């Protein structure tokens, strides 16, 4: 055999939903169990719930820093108010009075770290430290390594934290030879979602047969189309409204997405959650449906050899 000049391509499945509460995390946990040996990434960093089902044992914890925040040094402030006039984000407030002068303070929740007040403060009385926005962790679970994170209160830039979690998951997959990464994506269509789907192999949109589900699906499909990513759609709780399910599936096909299995309305999903188990680890009726969705996705997690250098493609 000649020299192998090709590289293994790691597949990344991202599960998103547009609207929240459609069962995305329950499905992701089941996929993690069915895959057996995938790296799991919880990119729903605003409301990370996957750990409630997969009981991770934390191996390493890291501070997540992003951007800067303005902090006024009170003792040097001359109370001129330039910072307040210049701030476009209403982050500078008067919080009291000291010796007859207003006391200015930057509200860290509103500060977007632009640095305008820092640069233009005539007294040079504003510091600009790095901002700690949360933390991310590498853990061991019963179905493989998991990378997850916790975003601090009102912290911005969860898109960057999502990128960090994804990058770390990819690094681990490369190191350990995993062929598949399963990502629990964030809700919505904003920055964190863009960060979680860009450059991935396949996006699964979990939706529900409601007017909201239909409406949000259109926006999500517009997004995945915008980024040219292969997309599959699964309707959860399909039997709540079979006609709507048909309609959503038709729309999904028209938008160029692949329709995979449906999942029935099943109260045993909550029972599994109470027992801290993935649905497919229980005898819930919908476990069978979730297996079907998994099979339809056709992700084996087997390492695929591709020509040329396509490694690190994400």
């Amino acid at each position: 055999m000649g020299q192998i000049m090709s590289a293994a391509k790691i597949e990344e499945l991202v599960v998103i939903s547009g609207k929240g509460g459609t069962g995305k995390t329950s499905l992701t946990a089941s996929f993690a169990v069915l895959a057996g040996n995938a790296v799991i990434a919880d990119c729903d960093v605003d409301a990370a719930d996957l750990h409630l089902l997969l009981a991770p044992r934390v191996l390493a914890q890291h501070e997540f820093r992003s951007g800067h925040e303005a902090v006024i040094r009170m003792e040097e402030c001359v109370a001129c108010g330039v910072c307040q006039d210049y701030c476009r984000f209403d982050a500078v407030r008067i919080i009291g009075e000291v010796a007859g002068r207003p006391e200015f303070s930057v509200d860290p929740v509103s500060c977007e770290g632009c640095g305008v007040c820092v640069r233009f403060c005539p007294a040079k009385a504003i510091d600009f430290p790095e901002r700690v926005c949360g933390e991310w962790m590498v853990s061991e679970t019963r179905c493989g390594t998991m990378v997850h994170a916790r975003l601090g209160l009102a912290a911005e830039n969860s898109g960057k934290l999502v990128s960090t979690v994804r990058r770390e998951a990819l690094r681990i997959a490369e190191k350990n030879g995993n062929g598949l990464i399963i990502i629990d994506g964030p809700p919505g269509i904003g920055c964190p979602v863009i960060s979680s789907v860009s450059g991935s192999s396949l996006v699964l949109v979990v939706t529900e047969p409601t007017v909201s589900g239909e409406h949000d699906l259109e926006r999500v499909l517009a997004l995945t189309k915008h980024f040219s990513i292969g997309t599959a759609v699964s309707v959860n709780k399909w039997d709540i409204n079979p006609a709507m399910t048909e309609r959503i599936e038709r729309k999904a096909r028209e938008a160029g997405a692949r329709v995979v299995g449906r999942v029935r309305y099943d109260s045993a999903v909550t029972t599994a959650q109470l027992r801290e188990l993935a649905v497919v680890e229980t005898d819930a009726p919908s476990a069978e449906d979730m297996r079907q969705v998994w099979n339809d996705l056709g992700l084996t997690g087997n390492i695929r050899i591709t020509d040329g250098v396509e490694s690190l493609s994400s």
Partner: protein
Amino acid sequence: MKIAFSTSGENLDAPLDGRFGRASKFILYDLEKEYFEVIDNQQNLNAAQGAGIQAAEAVVRAGANGIVTGHCGPNAYRALCAAGVAIYNCEAPTVAAALTAFRAGVLLPMESADVEGHWV
């Protein structure tokens, strides 16, 4: 003429990185002097946004006349075009192979960005 190659290593045998903005390093090869230097891009690897733009600034500052990489997003493309730097798309496995391809004249300058932004 100096050409920058996106890579993760520090010599010509290193793999060519398919990403531009998020590549960890660039090898800047001087075709006249047959000599190269390594430009670190680690800072951009961790950038929240705008990695392609910052990477473009870094290679332009270093004096590159052309870039050989796998893919290039819209922001980096715009930035490099403004600086008059040509971008060559290449799928060769290593920097050395990409350099050979470049010298042979088989690489064509890209005429538009070939991936969307946020392509981490």
